[in-house]
């Protein structure tokens, strides 16, 4: 088998205050996969995500991205390879215009001039926001801001796109538009979410993190229809949603 895009082995981490968030997490994601990372609040999902691009240092175990270990010396390249879209677009978009914001990442990588401009417009095009390049981000709707946030990461041509709660606070139309954009991208995807129908729609595979360990890893249909597993880890399907009625995808 080829080198996984994401290779997490025995990852453990405790916060400085002594709170242990991860107890030996193993996770492999291969090229082109779309994986949902599910789990109750406080399961350690965000902590795990912050290890993927070296914001947090592993207490034990290792993380590698396409074979490159996440260490201090590799941070620059790791952060190009792993694109994280945070939950609140207002945290991610801070430049005066959409164009400047999308250019921020590649400019940090040393890209300039026409090449920069080309990549910025390509990324905005992929999320359908090219017409808004010169608008200030805070004048856009929430759904538009989330799409621009995705573009700010896509522009770095990451090997894996990590999304933290991509559907939160979106109205149903924006939620669907984002789903269409995400399924249309040719990129490996890891999506942290509580939105189980969204996970089912977008991700063929799901990983359940609970109390700092991976407790399930398999086809999303199997995870969502395993009632004992779901109940044991505070996962609940929303009212009226039944994966069995939809069937395997």
């Amino acid at each position, binding site marked *: 088998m080829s080198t996984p895009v994401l290779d997490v082995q025995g990852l453990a981490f405790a916060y400085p205050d002594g709170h242990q968030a991860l107890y030996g997490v193993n996770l492999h994601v291969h090229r082109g996969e779309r994986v949902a990372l599910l789990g109750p609040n406080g399961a350690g999902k965000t902590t795990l995500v*912050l290890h993927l*691009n070296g*914001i947090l240092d592993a207490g034990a175990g290792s993380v590698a991205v396409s074979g490159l270990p996440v260490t201090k010396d590799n941070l*620059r390249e790791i*952060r*190009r390879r*792993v*694109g*994280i879209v*945070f939950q*609140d677009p*207002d*945290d*991610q978009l*801070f*430049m*005066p*215009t959409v164009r*400047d914001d999308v*250019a*921020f*990442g590649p*400019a*940090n*990588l040393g890209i*300039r*001039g026409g090449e*920069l*401009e080309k990549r910025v417009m390509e990324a905005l095009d992929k999320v359908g926001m090219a017409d808004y390049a010169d608008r200030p*981000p*805070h*004048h856009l709707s*929430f759904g538009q801001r989330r799409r621009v946030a995705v573009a*700010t*990461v896509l522009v*770095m041509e990451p090997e894996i796109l990590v999304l933290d709660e991509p559907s939160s606070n979106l109205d149903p139309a924006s939620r669907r538009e984002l789903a269409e954009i995400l399924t249309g991208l040719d990129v490996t995807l890891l999506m942290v979410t509580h939105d189980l129908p969204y996970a089912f729609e977008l991700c063929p595979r799901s990983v359940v993190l609970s109390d700092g360990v991976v407790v399930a890893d398999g086809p999303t249909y199997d995870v969502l229809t395993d009632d004992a597993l779901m109940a044991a880890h505070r996962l609940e399907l929303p009212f009226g949603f039944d994966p069995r009625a939809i069937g395997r995808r």
Partner: protein
Amino acid sequence: MGQGHGHKLHFHGHSPVHRAAPHHKLLALLGFTLVVVATPKDWFAAYGLYLLLLAAVVVVSTVPPTYLLKRLVVEVPFVVFALLMPFIATGPRVEVLGVSLSEHGLLAGWALLAKGTLGVLASLTLAATTEPRDLLLGLERLRLPQQLVQIMGFMIRYVDVVGDEMRRMRIARESRGFTARNPKHWPVVARSAGALFIRSYERGERVHLAMVSRGYTGSLRQGSDR
């Protein structure tokens, strides 16, 4: 959510004043203010000249004078102080309409009023004719340290976000039957301000995290990177 479009001080236009390079405008404002402040209090004609000069710039800029005059209210605290000066200053006194006023106070009050108004009016004219991001660009060209330019950039970007948060907190307070009417209510308002501060601080940390995730290493160029 409910954010106004455009910054409240900027008046959109395409006049020569709007188009002038931001760093030239900044230097002009600085020079003008220094000259005004350095002018002796009793050179009354000079102040008239300054006002004419400023009025000419406003006319060329096509910004409606009422637009600027309305925003002059920020000066009110200084005006109050300037009006008080003739009453509270000491020294020789003169009778004006039967009220005994201090000569020094009158002159000092006049100077404060004249210099303050000219300075505020000039700054408002700059703000009305220059986009915030162009101002940052101008400051950068004037070699203001990067860190300061970045801090101002973040301030401009997040002033609406924090203002919105403050407004939502007020609405939430009022929805639970609280309105700050007298000093007894101040502790509640103070605690809200504290919560807002902590939230903003945490947001700052999250923004930094998002920046680092995109390879931020300490330098940030305002626009003009193409």
